[in-house]
């Protein structure tokens, strides 16, 4: 992941966290991948949202916990809309929003 993508990913952490119905943003990567990355990048903050790029464009994965008050599919859709709005004109290959928990 390039420095550009790190910055975007950190920005997306905030964007996603502010979406109505989102209660938590989880790390998109498994713990082990995350600890390897944190070893590699030193003390800098590691983004929770994963951003990678291939020939087709950006691939973004956000893992979230959502509120029980709203329907989970609608909250997931709002998250993906917010991500697209935040990325702007950059080509996107895939936005994946994974609901990992419904808070009750």
């Amino acid at each position, binding site marked *: 992941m390039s420095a550009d993508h790190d910055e975007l990913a950190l920005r997306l952490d905030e964007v996603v966290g502010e979406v109505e119905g989102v209660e938590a943003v989880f790390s998109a990567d498994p713990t082990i991948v995350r600890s390897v990355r944190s070893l590699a990048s030193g003390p800098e903050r590691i983004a929770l949202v994963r951003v990678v790029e291939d020939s087709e464009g950006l691939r973004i994965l956000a893992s979230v916990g959502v509120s029980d008050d709203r*329907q989970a599919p609608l909250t997931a859709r709002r998250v993906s809309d917010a991500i697209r709005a935040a990325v702007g004109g950059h080509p996107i290959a*895939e936005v994946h929003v994974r609901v990992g928990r*419904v808070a009750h």
Partner: protein
Amino acid sequence: MTERSADIGGSGYTLDELSDYLDRGMSPAIPAIDDNAECQAMLATLSRVAGLSRELVSRDAAENPTIDEGWLAGLLSAVGREVRAGRDIPFSSSDPTTRLTITEGAVRELVRAAGDSVDGVLVGTVAIDGDVTQPGAEVAVAVTISIVPRRSARELAEAVRERVRSELLKHTELAVGAIDVTVADVHLLPSDEPAPGAVTGDGTTTGPAPRDEEEQR
């Protein structure tokens, strides 16, 4: 060094052979041991010291019943990092570059919470059967529950079924077929007497003690 004891009471069997016999549950029966008074006394002693060994550990535990909260917090944080996410269950999306999913683990938790919300019910296991990764494929849900006594199992199971169905309808797009609720257990409310074998706040076991628990004498 010959610490192997000679045969016991002229039976032709040594102490170690008696111990093996005891470990085998004294089966198949060996009349030379069963009919020998000294062997019988030794078998009783062997089984007594084995029981005492288990009692000793139970007593140690009863004398130190508190769990170090820092130790427990460390354990739970390690465990909490290993989420059982399971399969990704899709939500529909009109845009082919948008993928919306909910994890199987989140759905299980949802079902568990829905069942627990019925007064007098605790959910045990939750199974989601069917190809959940295929949009529109019918899935069956199987839930085991524990209920408090003196409540109608049929009514509680029906209440669980309704709440589970409505939560799944709200938060997933699964085509939910049968919701199978099995009453597998009974538990008491915290205000009631503790359940047999359940553990009270101080960590001691109550009710009929399992075989290897400390015996009160």
